[in-house]
């Protein structure tokens, strides 16, 4: 090996050792589907003209949002077992907006005890109905321009949310007890960093296709790939 390559190798090694925080590993991967998913249906918002006109192309249903390479969006990937120690909820709030009579994001993930801030950016009243079973079920109206609704949840649960006024509006609050979670984007990819070495169960939850789990052990500084493949349903 010549001197330049050796220098580069040393630099690389030093970078790799110092960049990774002491003992932290990463689990990453991609969530995809096989089979034929149902075609997203167009949402007719004609009963709410102030929202309908905000969509130059009509909004579509979001219960199985797919992307290139058979990717699945809005999948909540999280550590369901193996993460030890209580983690207190972050002080920052997670936001959930109602815009164009849609929930943005469609699925919001937050930690038990973390504040959820709900805003209404539309010109119509909405009514946020959290259909919780383990947590307290609640139902609050929000007129246009009203102050944000702030709520907290104290138990882990995937809570369906609907708007009582606009039946097509559906979303989820994914309330998790772990601090290691992420929601997949349009490429279906996810990354769970800062994991101490150990044995973990990774879960992936998709609202229509259910939950899948895989177990994995990671050592200090290791990055491992865990992919999930869901069976799509045509209807």
């Amino acid at each position, binding site marked *: 090996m010549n001197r330049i390559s050796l220098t580069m190798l040393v630099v690389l090694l030093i970078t790799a050792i110092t960049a990774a925080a002491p003992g932290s590993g990463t689990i990453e991967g991609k969530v995809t589907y096989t089979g034929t998913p149902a075609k997203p249906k167009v949402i007719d918002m004609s009963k709410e003209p102030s929202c309908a006109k905000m969509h130059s192309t009509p909004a579509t*249903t979001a219960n199985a949002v797919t992307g290139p390479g058979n990717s699945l969006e809005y999948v909540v990937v999280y550590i369901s077992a193996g993460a030890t120690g209580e983690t207190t909820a972050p002080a920052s709030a997670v936001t959930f907006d109602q815009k164009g009579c849609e929930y943005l994001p469609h699925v919001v993930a937050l930690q038990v005890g973390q504040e959820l801030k709900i805003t209404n950016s539309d010109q119509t009243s909405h009514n946020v109905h959290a259909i919780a079973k383990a947590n307290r079920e609640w139902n609050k109206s929000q007129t246009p321009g009203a102050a944000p609704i702030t709520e907290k949840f104290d138990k882990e649960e995937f809570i369906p949310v609907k708007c009582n006024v606009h*039946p097509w509006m559906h979303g989820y609050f994914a309330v998790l007890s772990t601090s290691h979670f992420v929601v997949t984007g349009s490429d279906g990819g996810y990354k769970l960093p800062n994991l101490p070495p150990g044995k973990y169960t990774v879960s992936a939850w998709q609202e229509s296709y259910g939950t899948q789990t895989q177990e994995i052990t990671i050592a200090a500084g290791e990055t491992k790939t865990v992919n999930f493949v869901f069976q799509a349903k045509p209807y």
Partner: protein
Amino acid sequence: MGKIFAVVVVAIAIATAYFIVGHVYWMPEDISVHGHVIDEQIIETTAGAGILFLLGQFVLAAFVFLYGDSKGKRKLKAWPGGAKPLIWAAVVLIGIEILTLSFIGSKAWGAVYFSPVDPSALPIDVQAEQFAFYFRYPGPDGRFGGTHPELIDEGSQNYFGLDPANDVAARDDIVVASLTIPVNKPVLLTLHSKDVGHSFYVRELRIQQDFVPGIMIPIHFTATKTGKYEIVCTQLCGLGHYNMKAYLNVVSQDEFDQWLKGQSSGQ
């Protein structure tokens, strides 16, 4: 004081009559085949009731004006004939009015509820729910799929609880949030509710019919004019009642056929 009262009553009566006779606020144009019978009945009733209204207020005002406090100076009189002529007047006049209006009224009511459904009527299944209307067309196979309340999933727009995985007839059903119908063609709506009581009201069609949970209620009509009209809910159904509406689009037969084809192929 009595004279002021009389003047005020007359002024109020005339102002009211002006607003009604002048149609300052009035019904929108009738676009249905049966509507004109109802409109005629409303006009007859307005005339008859209006005359009674004006007479009542004017006579009251006249008597109050004329027979105010004379501090004992005027000799009192009784209405000649006593109660008998008044009773007869009420019985005869109102009796005639009742018979007339009932006769005309039964024709108008019959036009909506007792006229037979045209066998070629376009069948559309209408579901009312908190807080929107959804309309289902049978699709090219001409059959409606079965509905299953336990399968209802609004997030994926399965409002009717269809089971396309197992029910072939349900696969081509067209579910939309606006009611599109061809002009001058009989339409048969079957109304049912997913949750609580609602009502179907289109002012221009002169039709109002409640949705009763547990019952499927048919109504039929023919629209005579193209245009965009509002279907609004009139039965208190919860917090979103004020925001529960759908548009009725009456279009030409060609436009309707094209629209229907577009909906089917989009599935």
